[in-house]
């Protein structure tokens, strides 16, 4: 049963455009994450939030900015996309900060032309 919802499923855009992805979890979790998955299926953590506060900010380009309005929502904005941003962006949540189990959404596939 899906409990982490991501929109859109797919997005195709041109280099230099701005895009935003949305994520909502209905599990009542305190912690949410953004992961980037490349074409080789490699999963890299980008950000994690705990109760709307940024906790983990991996080395990602400054054009990426996460936004959290409440602990159930975590969005991702990319200003001026680059071709290397083409990937699947996966949102996840966990019960608490210890992150023993992550629950993932189905991802947003971004293609930058």
């Amino acid at each position, binding site marked *: 049963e899906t409990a982490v919802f991501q929109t859109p499923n797919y997005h195709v855009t041109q280099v230099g455009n701005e895009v935003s992805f949305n994520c909502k979890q209905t599990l009542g979790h305190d912690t949410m994450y953004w992961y980037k998955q490349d074409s080789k*299926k490699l*999963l890299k953590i980008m950000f994690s939030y705990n109760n709307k506060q940024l906790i983990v900010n991996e080395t990602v380009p400054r054009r990426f900015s996460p936004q959290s309005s409440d602990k159930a929502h975590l969005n991702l904005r990319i200003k001026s996309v680059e071709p290397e941003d083409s990937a699947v962006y996966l949102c996840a949540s966990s019960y608490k900060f210890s992150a023993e*189990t992550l629950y993932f959404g*189905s991802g947003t596939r971004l293609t930058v032309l």
Partner: protein
Amino acid sequence: SQLAEENSWALSVHEGESVTVNCSYKTSITALQWYRQKSGKGPAQLILIRSNEREKRNGRLRATLDTSSQSSSLSITATRCEDTAVYFCATAGTGGYKVVFGSGTRLLVSP
């Protein structure tokens, strides 16, 4: 570098056979996680095995953990076509605030 790493990039078996995916990790852990990702979906946790456990089962799945060699394995018995997926091992980093995934093992189960 990855904190956890599967030892095989891809495996292929026929339905009904058993298969084992191996994982090695580089840091002390409180738990090791196994995930499966099917095409078009996000990863889903299969088994969480804690550092004080040596083995854990979940139906046809069996995970083992050897903290002395810093390795883990996930075995699937009586494989089915729907087991076709990418299998990841994962560990929590220092402080447990982020989960780091291995590069995954692609398993193909054919009829």
